[in-house]
């Protein structure tokens, strides 16, 4: 089978399977749509990116976000569930030229899902978890992030009680950008403190 006929076969196969399950009353297409929507629209790093972009352009919002993260997030028009499962107990911390923050979960793999989406594969890795606490600078360097000696590195242990997320530094040369443009450059790694926000200079 060549690639296009294989794709056509796969598409027909899942359509056949789903339609039979629906006809038999086993599932409804709404349930399937809801599951897909949850991952595509409700929960993902795009939520966190919007929060960071707003904090960059609105100092008052940033202050509120740092002081009372859940209530600041509740003011934003984000999909339902932001404050729900694993979104509760969130706490934002800010990267500055003086302090760089990194979040890990040494016990398991707690993660602020609703705003950061699925954690990167290495987040669950026991070696990363142990080393991030012991030698954060070295780990960050391996991620391509060279933190100057003059900058303090703080590591925050996310748990069931508090789920941290990092407001990265706003990159230079983004003056006058809209929140939408800014949100587009924020990555989940940056909101975890494992990367800086990069702006392509080739625009």
């Amino acid at each position, binding site marked *: 089978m060549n690639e296009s006929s294989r794709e056509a076969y796969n598409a027909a196969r899942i359509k056949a399977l789903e339609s039979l399950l629906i006809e038999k009353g086993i599932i409804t297409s709404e349930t399937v749509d809801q599951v897909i929507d949850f991952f595509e629209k409700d929960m993902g790093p795009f939520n966190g990116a919007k929060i960071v972009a707003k904090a960059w352009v609105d100092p008052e919002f940033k202050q509120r976000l740092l002081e009372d993260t859940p209530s600041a997030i509740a003011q934003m028009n984000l999909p339902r569930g932001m404050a729900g499962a*694993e979104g509760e107990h969130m706490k934002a911390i800010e990267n500055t030229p003086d302090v760089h923050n990194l979040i890990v979960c040494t016990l398991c793999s707690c993660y602020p899902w609703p705003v950061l989406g699925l954690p990167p594969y290495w987040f669950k890795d026991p070696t990363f978890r142990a080393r991030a606490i012991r030698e954060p600078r070295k780990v960050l360097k391996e991620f391509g992030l060279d933190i100057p000696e003059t900058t303090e590195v703080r590591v925050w242990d996310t748990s069931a009680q508090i789920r941290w997320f990092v407001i990265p530094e706003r990159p230079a040369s983004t003056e006058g950008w809209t929140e939408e443009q800014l949100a587009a450059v924020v990555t989940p790694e940056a909101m975890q403190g494992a990367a800086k926000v990069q702006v392509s200079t080739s625009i």
Partner: protein
Amino acid sequence: MQIKFEQFVTASMLGNQDAPPRSNGELLFQIDWESRAFGVAIALSKKGHYEWEDFRQELIASIAEWEANHCQDDPNWDYYQRWLLALERLVCELELIDIEELETRTQQLLKPTF
């Protein structure tokens, strides 16, 4: 604590051999049928037709089967094809649907409509 079922299922796979492909923290679906297969498998478990772990084991088995017969960098590797295979095996094993009716329906859908 309230845990969304969708979060539970993906968390159970993260960092493991059966983890779905992702891009920048989001699930990566390259083509429509992949997200359909993903959604149907989770919906069935969410509605209690099987335990999520049973689906995972079926998926792990279907991946292992591929790996036993292909080189590691075989360009034909397709995660969601293994997912789809695991799903159809499980629904047939549980007699939710019959393999023959699935074959017939697939062939009907593949027929060009004039």
